[in-house]
């Protein structure tokens, strides 16, 4: 039965409830039935027009859908079930709508809408009909319709009383649509007809969030997973931050400029999450609205905000959900900030070079003295960059909010792209070892200099290197 719910209906009643879920209709693609073709493609060889001696007009006349049938007196009857008019018609989408063919699934956040028809299939009139419809869940009963104040005077034999109910689904689990009719039957007996239609409400989405801090920024990553049996069009996904934060969505524009600018606006790919487990990720950068330097430390249970999600299905059928509050880990402010300021543009193998570094005390008290060295790190990889000279550099104490710039003398022992890694700071007084500076990649070269004296010209071949900083680990 299409869209019908199973409900018990005692047979000694004049009246009966017929119920059909009324979610929005869908477009029907009629390709299962029709296989529209061009008669020329059916009756002639595909390379028919290769032969220049054959008159193309004769042949193409067969394709012409307006040609009347010689035999059938211009009887066009079911021509449109056979002959294609326009090749695009193979899409089989005429715009015909079809009513929902099954009850389907119901999800939290949707609107349950239903056509309810009270039919009188007896030979007698039913009078003074009081009709009630309500939804019962584990937690509550919601009245949708009640004609007690103005009962339906009469439903004649073979007649009907129809109504449409709507209910925003806000609870999970089993629901029962209870329809009752209280009426006087043909014998003037007051009869009571209850009918029950059960359905279950499931969760359509899950939202998993991760909060990460990278350098000075806090990022919120949200992964939406679709548990329904339909593709969900994400109409609106909005993160509403709580008062002390602002949030900016980061998105790539994968949709590059179309060659044909006329169609560009029409074909921006929609965010469509596939049925049964498809996912889509959203990324936001969270910034504190409180701008004080060093004051952004927040306690561990800070509330970042929540998501408002609106999705749509066929013909715009909407669903809306809100997530719970999302908590974030605070932005950790390091006590000591170590930064690499400068590296020489050309670094030659086995020749010492200097890197400039700065150390900043981000606390409100004096720290230090410090030792700077390169630590071996976890891996046993051979290191091709070493401190040249004294292995431990000692730095004097640093007052609150102050910086110091110093040089580290290094030497490279291997050619090519290598890492300067493991530069570590150790606070001697507090016995505190800080995280090493993130790896920096550089290229070490030979420097070629040749003088080629040929026709009194000198050629200098110089290979210029580029160097780049290794990225901080974003994972």
């Amino acid at each position, binding site marked *: 039965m299409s869209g019908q719910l199973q409900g018990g209906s005692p047979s000694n009643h004049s009246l009966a409830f017929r119920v059909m879920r009324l979610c929005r209709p869908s477009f029907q693609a*009629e390709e299962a039935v029709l296989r529209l073709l061009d008669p020329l493609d059916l009756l*002639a060889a595909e390379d028919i027009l290769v*032969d220049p001696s054959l008159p193309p007009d004769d042949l193409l006349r067969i394709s012409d859908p307006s040609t009347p049938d010689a035999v059938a007196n211009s009887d066009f009857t079911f021509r449109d079930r056979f002959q294609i008019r*326009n090749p695009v018609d193979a899409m089989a989408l005429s715009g*015909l709508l079809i009513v929902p063919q099954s009850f389907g699934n119901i999800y939290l956040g949707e609107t349950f809408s239903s056509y309810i028809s009270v039919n009188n299939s007896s030979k007698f009139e039913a009078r003074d009909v009081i009709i009630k419809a309500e939804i019962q869940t584990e937690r509550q009963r919601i009245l949708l319709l009640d004609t007690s104040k103005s009962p339906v005077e009469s439903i004649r034999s073979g007649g009907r009383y129809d109504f449409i109910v709507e209910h925003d689904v806000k609870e999970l689990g089993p629901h029962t649509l209870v329809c009752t009719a209280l009426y006087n039957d043909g014998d003037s007996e007051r009869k009571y007809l209850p009918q029950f239609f059960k359905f279950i409400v499931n969760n359509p989405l899950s939202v998993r969030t991760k909060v990460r801090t990278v350098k000075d920024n806090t990022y919120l990553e949200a992964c939406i997973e679709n548990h329904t049996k339909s593709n969900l069009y994400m109409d609106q996904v909005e993160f509403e931050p709580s008062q002390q934060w602002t949030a900016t969505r980061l998105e790539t524009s994968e949709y590059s400029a179309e060659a044909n600018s006329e169609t560009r606006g029409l074909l921006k790919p929609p965010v469509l999450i596939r049925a049964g487990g498809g996912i889509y990720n959203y990324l936001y950068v969270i910034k504190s609205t409180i701008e004080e330097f060093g004051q952004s430390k927040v306690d561990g249970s800070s509330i970042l905000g929540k998501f408002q999600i609106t999705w749509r299905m066929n013909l*715009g059928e909407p669903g809306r959900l809100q997530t719970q509050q999302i908590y974030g880990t605070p932005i950790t402010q390091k006590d000591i900030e170590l930064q690499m300021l400068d590296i020489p543009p050309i670094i030659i193998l086995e020749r010492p070079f200097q890197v400039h570094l700065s150390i900043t005390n981000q606390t409100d008290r004096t720290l230090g003295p410090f030792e700077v060295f390169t630590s071996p790190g976890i891996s046993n990889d051979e290191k091709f960059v070493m401190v040249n000279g004294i292995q431990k550099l000692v730095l004097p104490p640093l007052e609150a909010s102050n910086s110091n710039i110093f040089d580290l003398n290094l030497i490279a022992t291997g050619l090519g792209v290598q890492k300067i890694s493991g530069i570590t700071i150790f606070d001697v007084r507090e016995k505190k070892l800080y995280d090493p500076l993130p790896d920096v990649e550089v290229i070490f070269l030979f420097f070629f200099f040749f003088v080629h004296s040929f026709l009194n010209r000198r050629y200098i071949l110089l290979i210029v290197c580029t160097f780049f900083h290794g990225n901080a680990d974003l994972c």
Partner: protein
Amino acid sequence: MTGEEPDAGGDPPSVAIADPLLSPPTSPLDLPFDVPSLLALSRRGQWRAVLDAVAVARRSHGLLPHHHLVCLAVSALALSKLRRFSDAAAEIDALDAPLDSPRFRFESYPSSYPGRSGSMVPFALRFLHADLPQRLGTRSVTVDRLYALFDLVRSKILEETTTASADLWRRREVFVIASLCCNHFVHREFEAALALVRLLLERDPSDPLLLSRLGYVQLQIGDLTGAKASFARLENLHPSGERTVELENLVGRNKALEFIVVKDYAAAVREYEECIERDPADVVALNNKALCLMYSRDLSDSIKVLEGALERVPTAALNETLVVNLCSMYELAYVNHGDVKKTLSNWIAQVAPDDFDPSCTRI
């Protein structure tokens, strides 16, 4: 190649060239059946009669290789229309060689087709060969074959030397892309469907049918802004003074859809009524108007609209989707809906073409 000519159909070719019946056809449509009557039968949906005509043709003497292929194409189509899909597939499989085999080229039979070259395979046969696996439960084979057909058509467009033949292959390209788009749509693979619509729009950015269908795909997804833009573009490209009745109705029906989206069913009904006044056989308007009435709680009138359509314009209105909708309404309206559906079913049996799918009444 030996002096012996390979045979496409299974019958040994006759030898005597002097026999006038065997001289090469002067027209490529010189077929072993009467073409106009076969087309008339097809347009009336009399597919059993088509099958009979093909069977008779196949028994005639002096059939040339390309006759066998055309008979095969028509037979496979008729069997598909009668929903005898395994029979259709079996007939094509009996060919025992792929459609690209030299056996199916004119130059392989120089005495039968002097001076002619090229493939004698009817393009519809390729399409049916691709379409059938999904009717038999292996959709992936259909998709693969359709994409392979897409490749073939694209390479033919590049090869063709005359404008007429290149145009013909371009029409076939649009046909194949549109078929693929439909396939993806039916299986809810909307991103693929949209990508193919984009391809079609590149070739013809102002085609009103295409823009409408883009809108329908977007509406099915739920992308209301996208659909609105597509419909607006159509209206801008084809302004109101210059439209045919057909185009005017297309625009009207699209407007009605936008009303349906916001649940303004009364406004949608008004749009559809204007369409029906311009064209009383506009079945899409009739069908959709009935749905709007139902969604407005007016089940009785929705049934009247559909029953009225079947009565007034039966050959246009006899459409499986319309019948499914009517039967759904019957099930809602009548406790004992079996009787009224049976009456409908009997009427359909008398009036409907052979390829009408009777399961749509769900009896």
